[in-house]
């Protein structure tokens, strides 16, 4: 059981890290702010989601599980708010990168 859980954790966290790496690469390599933003938010949501998912079986209490989920939800909320704000700023500045 614990072997299975550990395997699940390792797989999920590794997959999450791949998304983080992809997001970071996008941030560095993409030409304009809009697509950078896109790469960052999409990849990070999935990356963090996978990391949180992977860590869930490692928690030994309900409180820990709730806290992990709360972290994920708060990060989602924050980036859901900041992404459009940056995009809006971009539009106001005339789309300059």
């Amino acid at each position, binding site marked *: 059981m614990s072997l299975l859980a550990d395997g699940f954790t390792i797989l999920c966290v590794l997959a999450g890290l791949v998304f983080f790496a992809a997001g970071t690469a996008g941030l560095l390599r993409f030409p304009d702010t809009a697509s950078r933003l896109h790469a960052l938010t999409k990849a990070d949501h999935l990356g963090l989601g996978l990391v949180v998912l992977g860590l869930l079986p490692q928690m030994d209490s309900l409180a820990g599980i709730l806290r992990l989920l709360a972290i994920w939800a*708060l990060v989602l909320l924050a980036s859901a*708010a*900041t992404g*459009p704000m940056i995009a809006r700023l971009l539009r106001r500045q005339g789309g300059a990168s």
Partner: protein
Amino acid sequence: MILGLVADGLLAAGILALALACVATRRAFASAALFIAYGLLLALAWARLGASDVALTEASIGAGLSGVLLLGGVRRLAGLAEPSPDAETGPLLTVLIGIGCAAVALAIGAAVLLLPDPAPSLAPQVAANLATTDLGNPVTGVLMSFRALDTLLESAVVLLAVVCVWALAPEGGWGGVAGPRQPIVRDGPLALLARVLPPLGIVIAIHILWVGADAPGGKFQAAAVLAAMWLMPWMAGLAPAPRIDARWLRLVLAAGPALFILIGLGGALAEGAFLAYPPGWAKPLILAIEIVLTASIAVALALLVMGPPEPPR
């Protein structure tokens, strides 16, 4: 072990790179943004150093509130359209200062390496005496009992800082609301955050305060979160800043330090030493101080970020 070292090395490299970038760039906005990232990495470093309480404080105050403050400062300074008239430091002087600073860094590095081994530590003494305070978190024990004087004085320093910031109010601003007027944002992402986040944040702050007695957390971290939950609707124009001459505001500001001092003086009367808690009363008294102090510090931190009152346009 090896993995830990690699993590430490990466973290160290990241912190140094961000700090260098922060100093190298001449654009204040970029510098402030880099500083926030630096603060967050620093919080991770604190976690690695086994100092979770400090990590929380660094993330909330060192990176969070300082970041808001600095970014806000950059924005408002740009609004004042003040071209920096001062000349840059000359290249020769820059090099000389650089050499001097490198020498200082090397000397401090050498001092760190030459610290005695085994390191002197008060951890055993804290562990031995923590039981008398009924607290489980040793850092809270130090802050509220063994070295309670520092915490008390610090709360007074924060209050004095509010007086200082207010003392910088321009002519005609006295008696108005703290800080610049914020444009009202009715919809959009900021308005959403400003409406959704505060109830959540307040719950989290109370949680951080409550667990602080036994786990990482406590009044400073909780106060920083509470201050942020006030600042966000303020920035969205949804929650007005208070008038600085409001009686309730000044009473809340003063309540925490005043209660702390009065309980300390009570200890002097009852137990023969300032800040001595009567046996069995340590935890309830500490909790009472922490709760009131959280309110005072939260208000003070928010007012510090808002800035001095300004004359109406």
